[in-house]
């Protein structure tokens, strides 16, 4: 953190000029640093920090085809906008695409997909949509009807991960970018600590995952605060970017909610704590031997997997056989927390923490 960071407690009264340019009137307090800042400086520093994250971490190479995981929500919409803007401004030389997954959630996903279709036109980025119905034969609505509101996030997360990889293969892209922001990653670090998943803990703070696989994924928003992603469109356009801003209708029971509430409270006390959690995650002393499970392919569909069948196939099999608890919770004989297996795998953290591993091909 910069040492000149303004602490609101110390300020005698609001300074009359923006901290950065010292010319214009400040219109907001920057969530990350609490600096009093004007509109222009905000969107400049917002975009600049993302550009630095991209450049310092070598996320892209010129000429690469890159798919943006686009849900129609604020993170991916802002990502699509900023990435295409930076691509143009700094000549990254990227071929950008929008990739959207339709989980089949009525009243939520069907609306947000309309947003993505509009984004396709607004940003001029080609769009590909894949649906759970086509890929797996089940929509999330069907799944929830069968299993209720516990563990549904596990199904959705596992299916979406594979769907994105398949979509990326169809588009023949070199990389996938997702809109995971600093808040998301901090939540994931906490969740992995709470749930005892040391292997995931060691991987979840990486800005790029799956480099040794066919479709590496990166998170350019790794150091970007969720609040700032919300503010950005107002600073840029004096209005909201066109995005869909409702919570998934099935999400209230996710275990991740605990971590999210805590982080919100923490941010109020000390904004930089979000980045500090990520820093801790990067610094944890985890022996390299604990990191990687055995890499292989799924016998049923050919997707990468550390077990005989990939998680998606296991879950699908369970659904098709009317045994929805299959694949939920720890395997027998390995349980550590007595009696509480079901709660362990609730949240969709699998999407964010498993990395693409080396595999043959994605011919399913």
């Amino acid at each position, binding site marked *: 953190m910069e040492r000149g960071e303004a602490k609101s407690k110390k300020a005698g009264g609001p300074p009359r000029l923006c901290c950065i340019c010292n010319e214009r009137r400040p219109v907001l307090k920057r969530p990350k640093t609490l600096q009093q800042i004007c509109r222009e400086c905000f969107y400049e520093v917002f975009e600049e920090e993302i550009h630095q994250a991209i450049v310092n971490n070598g996320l892209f190479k010129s000429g690469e085809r890159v798919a943006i995981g686009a849900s129609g929500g604020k993170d991916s919409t802002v990502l699509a906008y900023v990435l295409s803007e930076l691509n143009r401004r700094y000549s990254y030389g990227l071929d950008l695409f929008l990739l959207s997954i339709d989980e089949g959630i009525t009243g939520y996903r069907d609306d947000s997909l309309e947003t993505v279709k509009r984004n396709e036109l607004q940003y001029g980025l080609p769009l590909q949509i894949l649906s759970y119905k086509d890929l797996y034969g089940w929509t999330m609505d069907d799944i929830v009807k069968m299993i209720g509101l516990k563990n549904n996030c596990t199904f959705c997360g596992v299916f979406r991960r594979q769907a994105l990889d398949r979509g990326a293969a169809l588009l023949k892209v070199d990389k996938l970018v997702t809109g995971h922001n600093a808040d998301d990653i901090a939540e994931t670090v906490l969740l992995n600590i709470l749930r005892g998943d040391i292997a995931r803990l060691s991987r979840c703070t990486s800005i790029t995952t799956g480099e040794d696989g066919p479709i590496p994924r990166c998170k350019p928003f790794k150091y970007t605060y969720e609040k700032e992603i919300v503010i950005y469109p107002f600073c840029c356009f004096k209005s909201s970017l066109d995005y869909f801003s409702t919570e998934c209708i099935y999400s209230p029971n996710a275990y991740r909610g605990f971590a999210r509430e805590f982080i919100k409270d923490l941010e109020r006390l000390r904004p930089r704590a979000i980045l500090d959690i990520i*820093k801790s995650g990067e610094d*944890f002393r985890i022996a390299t031997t604990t990191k990687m499970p055995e890499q292989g392919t799924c016998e049923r569909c050919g997707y990468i997997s550390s077990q005989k069948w990939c998680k998606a196939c296991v879950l699908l099999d369970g659904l098709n056989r009317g045994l929805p608890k299959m694949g939920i919770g720890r395997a027998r004989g390995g349980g550590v927390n007595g009696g509480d297996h079901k709660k362990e795998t609730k949240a969709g953290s699998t999407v964010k923490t498993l990395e693409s591993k080396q595999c043959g091909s994605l011919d399913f």
Partner: protein
Amino acid sequence: MACNSSGCESGGCYGREKENGCKVVDVKETVRLCVKCKSNEPMTFGDGGSDDGRFCAECFRSNVYGKFRLAVTSHAMITPSDNVLVAFSGRSSSRVALQFVHELQVKALKNYEASRDRSLPVFGVGVAFVDESAAYPSLSGGMSDAIAWVRSTVLSLSPPEKDLHVVPIESVFGSDSVEARDRLVKLLDSVSDETGKEDLLLHLKMLSLQKVASENGYNRLVVGSCTSRLASHVLTATVKGRGYSLSADIQHVDARWKVPIVLPLRDCVWQEITRLCHLDGLKTVELARHPQSGINDLVSSFVALLQEENPSRECTIVRTAAKLTPFYFNKIPETDDSCVPMATQRRLKKFNLKYDGSMTTEAFCPICNGPLNGSDSSEDESDALYDACCSSCRFQILPQEPSSLDHFGSLLPHHMISQVKHHQKFDSQTYLREKIKDCLLLDDEEAV
């Protein structure tokens, strides 16, 4: 023998088999037995916690004491020639630690008196109570009563006798109590972050304990931190960016200090400790806490919430953190101590319970004594104190204005600031050369 009764719990009917034979019994009339010894009636503490009504008083107690004893022996925490100082706050956890250490000592004394050759001496035990009223003026009202109570408690725990050291926290600044208090207040006032202030006090508390321990010839400091306390620490360390040094803080042994710290209650949960106090009638004193409004308090509330949702969450958190790689100093250091009985020395060597004390490869933050990660080094080389500190202390304890750093440094106790000078002079080339100079055949200038 399987029992048909629907109200019969596992083990519930065993004791009655021979007397009555198995019969269908109404749920209310079933006599429940301890699941361990299967002979006594289980204790119910009625505190809504897990495992309530499963163990009898004796088995419960022996479970908890067993964990303590296992920790002590498997980590060589206390050996016959040691002189152990127990940090005692008067609250439940340290009360149990003190009680257990006392019982261990009593047993050792009994063995000593019964043995013919008296080869194994009995380890010594002292007690230290830190008086924080200079930092938290609200405590001063009840402090003299609390100290009197501590004194009588320690007196009751003899034989063997134990010295009590009442340590004012300002003693880190020296023995002149007025000047020391003044310096403490000035230092605390210059820290603007609430959490930083609380943490700085914790570091000063540890410094004062270290001071009294080394000045009075103790070679071990027993701290009563339990699983629950450590679970909170795991999360507070994470949210403060202290992920690198976390594994150093949560092991059974922490030997980066002059007097190594041992945590014999590390594997016991808060609930067990409070239940034990209740069971054994161990009195505790609860000094009115200064209201905490910072991150530490937020994390405690969060952990309490998680515990409600799942009572084994604290254990999972600590178990996760235990999978992090500890440091070389998380073992009792090797010393050329001829007082250590041969049998003990052999045992320690056999189980690799010690480390070579000359292996200092880490640099430490002068304020929190946390091992420094390479990425913590600052680009700005202008201030020695700033450079020497970890990023967490830089943010929450050091003043933000560079011009105030010098003044702040002058407010720190001598022990902390002397670490800075040491760090400043740290030159790895020279350091390594020092280590190998015995082997060098050539003069310094001609050597590689």
